[in-house]
């Protein structure tokens, strides 16, 4: 829809400073681990997430002329990684459908009790009960050790929301994994999903 007076937005391309290819590469490598967290939160596969981050670099290079270097590189790249990862999910889901597999048949499904599993497996299953944004925020906080303002920047959400996602995600994981430490356990079916 063409912009009307009420909906017209500032045109980001006007007077935008540009990144060179070399500057892009430097920014990309610096942000790559954070971007991996974004991809992993959606894909839950280490190697695939790495591939998606690299694929996103190619997509970003094609669109580099659109990026205003005075805005947040991490936020821009995170958005591209998110879209690329979602595409990958869709592609895989299509392939699964074609192969006659149901999502419930996937290994590591988060549903149900996980009696007899090791701590890491239980943790993996518990991670699946979180939503993607919460998972990404949690990984950025714990794995990357990012400050909330940096998580907020990368995820394009307010700092307080990032903090709240981490808080609730940690709590949800503790509730799910409490049995390992003799603590009360939350019910399995997403009841405490943030």
């Amino acid at each position, binding site marked *: *829809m063409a912009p*009307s007076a009420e909906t017209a937005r500032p045109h980001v391309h006007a007077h935008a400073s540009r990144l060179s290819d070399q500057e892009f590469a430097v920014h990309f490598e610096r942000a790559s*681990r954070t971007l991996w967290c974004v991809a992993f939160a959606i894909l839950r596969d280490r190697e695939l997430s790495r591939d998606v981050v690299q694929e996103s670099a190619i997509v970003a*290079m*094609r669109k580099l002329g659109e990026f205003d270097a005075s805005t947040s590189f991490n936020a821009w790249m995170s958005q591209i990684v998110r879209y690329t990862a979602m595409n990958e999910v869709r592609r895989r889901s299509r392939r699964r459908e074609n192969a006659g597999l149901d999502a419930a048949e996937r290994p590591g499904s988060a549903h149900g009790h996980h009696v007899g599993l090791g701590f890491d497996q239980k*943790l993996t299953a518990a991670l699946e009960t979180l939503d993607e944004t919460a998972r990404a925020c949690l*990984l950025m906080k*714990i794995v990357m050790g990012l400050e909330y303002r940096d998580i907020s920047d990368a995820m394009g959400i307010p700092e307080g929301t990032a903090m709240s996602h981490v808080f609730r995600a*940690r709590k949800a994981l503790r509730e799910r*994994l409490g049995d390992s430490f003799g603590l009360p356990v939350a019910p399995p079916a997403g009841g405490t999903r943030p």
Partner: protein
Amino acid sequence: MSPIPHEPQPFDEILERFIDGTLAGDELASFERRLENEPELRAQLELQSRIDESLRRMCSIEPIPMPIITPADLVQPLDEDGLAEPNNPSPAPIPFPLSAMQDAGDQHQTRQPAPWRRWGILAAAAALLLTFAGLYRGYWDARVPDFRLMEPVAMYDRLVRTGWVPAVVCRTEPEFAALVKEKLGTALVATATPGIEVLGWGYQDDYDGSPISPGTMMLLTRVEGVDVLVLMDKTSRDRRLKPPTGSSLKIFRREIGPLVTYEVTPLDQPKVLPTLRQPE
């Protein structure tokens, strides 16, 4: 005078602050005393440490190097999202008004030119067509340098991913009709129908493209809980959208006066298009 005791904070909140290292002074001392006396708190803290340690181990990742990018990677006409590159040397087809040409052809069908004149006429027509196409393309490129074509399915998916939230909402039928008229030159309204919720309009700048033209209007609707996208544009700009391949979505088309409308839907039948009409 004894100090005013701290208001006890919620268990999880204070634990979280301790983990984040934001507890200090009296609060920290108080928490450490609680740790000594409350086995459950100790267990929670131990559990959280174990979770953090496992996550760091499971998700440790080295910086990812830039991939090797070939020139071919940078001129790919359509990316995974169905986006056409803005400055691609081979842009997607220009929405040339073919229907108008066919109509004109029909009107002149009864007159057959002499055989010797046919080649001349054909050559002149070709020259005119090329000139017109060149001018049209030049005009188009100059007018909309940033316009990107986006496949309707990609547009639908993006709208779903971003929450199916309209950017502009019309509250009344006259408001709806006036907006369509302002954008497309002809008013159109949707007859209120049970089970169909007209949410509002998407703003294509939010999605980096449009399936038909820069002027395409995108109406977000919900049919009995199912997200259904309706595209509206002038028939002269129609691109004759093709049925999607590799997607469960379907596309239906309907012309209403000088406007063309499409319904992109997971349903087997168009539900919104039949409700659209020109106001009396």
